[in-house]
């Protein structure tokens, strides 16, 4: 059996690799998405006062800083048995939605669009953001980055710092929004909405109007049939900050709903010998292996899961875009994973509209930003929809609120099973008779990019360039070549 590895996985946080195993005829026998990092934050948080945790977990990843921050402060609320004031909740929602805009924008333009604009088989030299700019034009690039900057400015105002925020407190928020700040955010929100409209237009022009790309988007290569989990309100509309986590099966039927600690009734994690990352599955179905299909116990989270689980969005422009998607894709759950990018574009405008709605609400400037704390109850769960999907922070503390145990389940962990299926399917479809060229390998990598993998937080270490080793095995299983970047 011949072994081929794609490593490093370009444009991903942290360190991971794909190993593809070929049989004697040169066709794909199996493929694995592997990570080689160890967990660290959960241990590091032990002994820390719960109110310090949000500021610390925001350093888990420079990109995902807002979501860990928000989930952990919700857990801290729960540890202190306190509900944040309505004003604090609005500020937190504003913060999270601004984060969605800047994050989705970066993901789409740096990750998703280059594959389509430059073409999925283009050379890596042009299939990246800089190559994208050369094709769509410098002025478009300038506009995107400037409008994204408006979202970062909002985060900076609310969070107290541009990268790792400091304002969240159990029961509230430490910094009120002044009238001047509200006006500034309102003005900036116009940039965000325009960015959302522009992004939908780019997606429309580049992907939806290209017959070849749409065949790829809706074809069987990039398709994983599994269950879905996402957060909805009482009308089943997609929510990010708070709501109920709803799970549906591959046919669209509801399996269950949970909130808070209830996740333990639905999610189990299986340790796999070939990865440090555990693979979650639905407890009620039971472990069915790393296989998709209607009997699968694997589930996925993130924009496509939210699209499938929800019945729409709670803002007008996003709802309009959702209805257009539904008209094109039908009512049943969509299993085509490149649709993730489409759902991402819809969420970008949804979040932008929510920022505008929240900034229009004058009551957000109220000074009622913190509720008094109750007694520490010793346990707290905070769940939000992170940009990449359901994020769970679960802490156990002593009576003083000092963390004794921490469990963080991030989107990339939820998605690990479907990612493996996606990579295997793409590899099997694209690699035939041992023929592997760069274009095909990129199309295999396209199978994991929709999930917007953040291995940094999935494995709880920091992002950055990691040591990479490539081992190549011949058909007899012998390691015939090793490549290193260190």
């Amino acid at each position, binding site marked *: 059996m011949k072994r081929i590895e794609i490593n490093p996985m370009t444009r991903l946080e942290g360190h991971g690799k794909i190993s593809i195993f070929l049989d004697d005829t040169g066709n794909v026998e199996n493929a694995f998405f592997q990570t080689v990092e160890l967990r660290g934050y959960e241990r590091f948080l032990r002994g820390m006062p719960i109110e310090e945790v949000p500021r610390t977990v925001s*350093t888990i990843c*420079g*990109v995902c800083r807002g979501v860990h921050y928000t989930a952990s402060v919700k857990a801290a609320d729960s540890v202190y048995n306190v509900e944040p004031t309505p004003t604090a909740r609005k500020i937190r929602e504003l913060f999270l939605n601004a984060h969605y805009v800047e994050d989705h924008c970066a993901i789409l333009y740096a990750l998703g669009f280059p594959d389509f604009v430059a073409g999925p088989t283009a050379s890596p030299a042009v299939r990246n953001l800089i190559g994208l*700019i050369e094709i769509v034009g410098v002025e478009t690039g300038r506009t995107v980055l400037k409008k994204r900057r408006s979202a970062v400015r909002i985060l900076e105002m609310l969070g107290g710092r*541009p990268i*790792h925020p400091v304002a969240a407190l159990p029961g509230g928020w430490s910094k009120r929004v002044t009238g001047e700040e509200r006006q500034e955010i309102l003005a900036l929100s116009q940039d965000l909405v325009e960015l959302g409209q522009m992004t939908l237009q780019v997606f429309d022009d580049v992907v939806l109007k290209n017959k070849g790309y749409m065949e790829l988007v809706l074809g069987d290569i990039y398709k994983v049939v599994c269950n879905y989990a996402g957060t909805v309100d009482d009308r089943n509309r997609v929510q990010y900050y708070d709501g109920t986590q709803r799970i549906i099966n591959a046919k669209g039927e509801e399996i269950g709903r949970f909130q808070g600690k209830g996740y333990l009734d639905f999610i189990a994690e299986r340790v796999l010998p070939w990865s440090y990352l555990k693979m979650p599955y639905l407890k009620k179905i039971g472990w069915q292996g790393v296989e998709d299909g209607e009997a699968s116990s694997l589930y996925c989270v993130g924009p496509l899961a939210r699209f499938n689980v929800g019945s729409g969005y709670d803002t007008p422009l996003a709802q309009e875009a959702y209805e257009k998607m539904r008209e094109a894709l039908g009512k049943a759950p969509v299993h085509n994973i490149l649709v993730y990018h489409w759902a991402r574009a819809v969420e970008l405008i949804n979040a932008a509209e929510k920022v505008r709605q929240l900034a229009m609400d004058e009551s957000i400037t109220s000074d009622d930003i913190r509720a008094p704390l109750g007694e520490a109850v010793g346990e707290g769960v905070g769940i939000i929809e992170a940009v990449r999907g359901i994020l769970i922070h679960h802490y156990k503390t002593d009576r003083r609120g000092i963390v004794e145990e921490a469990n963080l389940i991030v989107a990339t962990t939820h998605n690990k099973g479907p990612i493996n299926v996606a990579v295997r399917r793409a590899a099997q479809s694209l690699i035939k008779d041992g023929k592997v060229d760069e274009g095909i390998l990129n199309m295999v990598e396209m199978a994991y*990019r929709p999930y917007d993998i953040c291995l940094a937080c999935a494995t709880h270490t920091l992002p*950055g*360039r990691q040591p990479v080793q490539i081992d190549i095995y011949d058909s007899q299983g012998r390691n015939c070549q090793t490549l290193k970047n260190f």
Partner: protein
Amino acid sequence: MRTIVVGIGNPVLMDDCFGIKVAEQLNGIMETRVLSTTGFDVIDALLGYERAYIIDGVNTGGVKPGTIMELAPEDLMADLEFSGTHNLHLGAALHLGYRLFKGEMPREIKIFAVEVQDAVNFGMQCTPAVEAAITVVADRIKDLSGVSV
């Protein structure tokens, strides 16, 4: 000349906080900014300045921990592959910044990369050799920018 000092790193991963500590030492003397990624945020931090000093840790494995390397942007631009989902590496971010905002980017950028010993384990202090380089780099920046030491 309008100058910005940009320190990049993670405050809780030992030597990875080197850039942050240099920026903190210069805070109040010069305009400073702390970042934890080398993506679009770098461009945001640099726009409107004429000169920039960027400080980050580096792990070449080829020199002793604490070794200070002074680099120009072109030294980092040979490899324009992307290192993260939405996290360009520094060379790619600077390249993108110049391509999109040529007139608004600093005319002069110097990068101080300091060889790390441990940027994996948790801790808010640098290892001794890297710690010793903090003041050296801060003084060098003050010297270069004409701020009296």
